[in-house]
């Protein structure tokens, strides 16, 4: 990426860098955690969040509503997670890159049952996983999830329902 690409648009206020930096200081940790939950990979998560804030900075002057930048960054992070997961799923990548797994630390911290849930989460379709993470990790409302995912509330409801059913079935299967 060229340096010029990293500059905010000419319409960006002079204080865009300070605003974005302050926003990063306040929310980056939570967003990296969200990306780690989504991708299972710390390095990718940090990159995704970094890129999301860079995107915010570059497009600051073009944002329709700068009063809610967190929602914009959150959507960018989710998009970045989708891209990362798609890239992993691409055929031809070495197995270690194609796998989706929680970090070594997470593996060590999780109980057996939680590991089963983590595995079941990884096996969910992307939309269902997103819906669950946004609902139960971020505690977002259906409306907020719909906004973040760019889908209707009905879609959120059905994705969440199916995902929970799949998790329940996986747990039942694992215990039988």
């Amino acid at each position: 990426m060229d340096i010029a690409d990293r500059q905010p648009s000419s319409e960006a206020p002079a204080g865009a860098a300070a605003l974005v930096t302050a926003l990063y200081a306040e929310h980056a940790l939570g967003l990296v955690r969200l990306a780690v939950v989504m991708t299972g990979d710390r390095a990718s998560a940090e990159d995704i969040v970094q890129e999301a804030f860079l995107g915010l900075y570059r497009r600051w002057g073009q944002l329709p509503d700068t009063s809610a930048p967190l929602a914009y960054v959150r959507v960018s992070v989710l998009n970045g997670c989708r891209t990362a997961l798609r890239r992993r799923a691409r055929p031809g990548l070495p197995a270690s890159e194609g796998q989706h797994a929680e970090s070594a630390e997470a593996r060590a911290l999780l109980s057996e049952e939680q590991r089963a849930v983590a595995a079941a989460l990884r096996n969910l379709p992307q939309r269902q996983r997103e819906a669950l993470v946004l609902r139960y990790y971020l505690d977002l409302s259906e409306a907020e999830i719909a906004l973040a995912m760019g889908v209707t509330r009905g879609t959120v409801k059905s994705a969440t329902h199916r995902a929970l059913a799949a998790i329940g079935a996986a747990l039942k299967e694992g215990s039988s």
Partner: protein
Amino acid sequence: MTRAEDLVRSTTRAIASTVGDVPPLRLEQAPGPLRSPARRQRHSASRWWLGFAPVAAAVAVVLLAVGLVLVKPVQNATTTATATPTHVVVPDDVPEYYAWTQAGRVLVGNLVTGATVVSFEPPSGVYLTAVYGTTDDDRTFVVTGDRARGTGAGTQWYLLRIHPGGTPQAQLTPLPLPVRQAPAGVAISPDGTMLAVALSGSPAVLRVYSMATGALLHAWSAPAGQFAAAKAQSGSVPGAAMALRWSPDSQHVAYAWNATAIDIVGVTTPDGSLLPISATMAKIGTTRTAFPSQYTAAGTAVTCDAAHGWDVVQGAQGWAVACAATWLPTPAPGQSSADLCRSGHTITFGIGMQSAYQVNGSENLQLAQQPMATECSGQGRPQDGAYIAWTNAGGTVIIGSLVLNGHSRFGIFTDGNPGLTPLPPPPGNPAW
């Protein structure tokens, strides 16, 4: 809330809790060499560090040590900067940080700039002796130390976690490992959950411990023997970093045995006798002759000397062992390499990967690198050699050094021109 909902909530929060800090935001491109975010993509299967341990940012096991074992950091890191940043373009995949021991301390450095970024003074009464890496995240290392006297004298175990840009930038915490004998080999599994420890003697034992709890998970033994890639020489200290390696999937441990072979055992193999359940991957010290002439002086033989480091990769063709090699003309009977120098011969001294693929039981040797230097300025010294710190899985990129006559070339070795990208050597380590 249903049980599934409860579990989803607790699981996602547990996974999220593994992240305790984030690197600072960079809104503009950093000056100098550095990596774009994309460049920081990890290629975990290729991370195999030897004596010195490169690093890059933090996760794995540690919160575990902090959370489950409730240990306190033994020391706050001291931040230092000992070198002016250079502007080196490094290949993709090459880690940015490494750690090593020097005079009883542990230092963490930046591979690209050569700067020492963190320094740990040893805990009271302990002399820190070695750093072993590394997990997939490239930020978690095991450090051993030696306590000479008192309760718990012997080997001490610590976990080193690096947080680039964090506060502190690194932490050293005790690991609850019940091993006081000096290890012949130590290696963390790439997934960060297990630590393989080899103890030479009679019997010789190979054990696998849980990184989280220190619990013994597996143990195998042999009546007697040494976990070593090279025969111990008088006055030398065997490199424990060279004796063990994990496979990238954390399912196998490869070990150098009696300086004669590199064997491998699966960690799911039942405990018991080590040698009968192991498979030999390659023999050590075998001289090969079937190499293109450009790799040998006067078309003579190449000796793959595992004493200088070896690596295990899981290539498409199966298991492979690679080791550093030096290329020397074959001395006449009674003649040494130094004699060759004095008599005007040119010694081509190189670093490279020599892979011994086991295909249907027979070895198919390949040479993946070219020699990078030619010198013949004096007599050889004991530390002359090719030292591999890290290689990628294909053996096409090597971080390491060539040491000849006390002169060291340290950097990134790649096939072709320029071949060697010099890097600032870590201070104080004669191998670099």
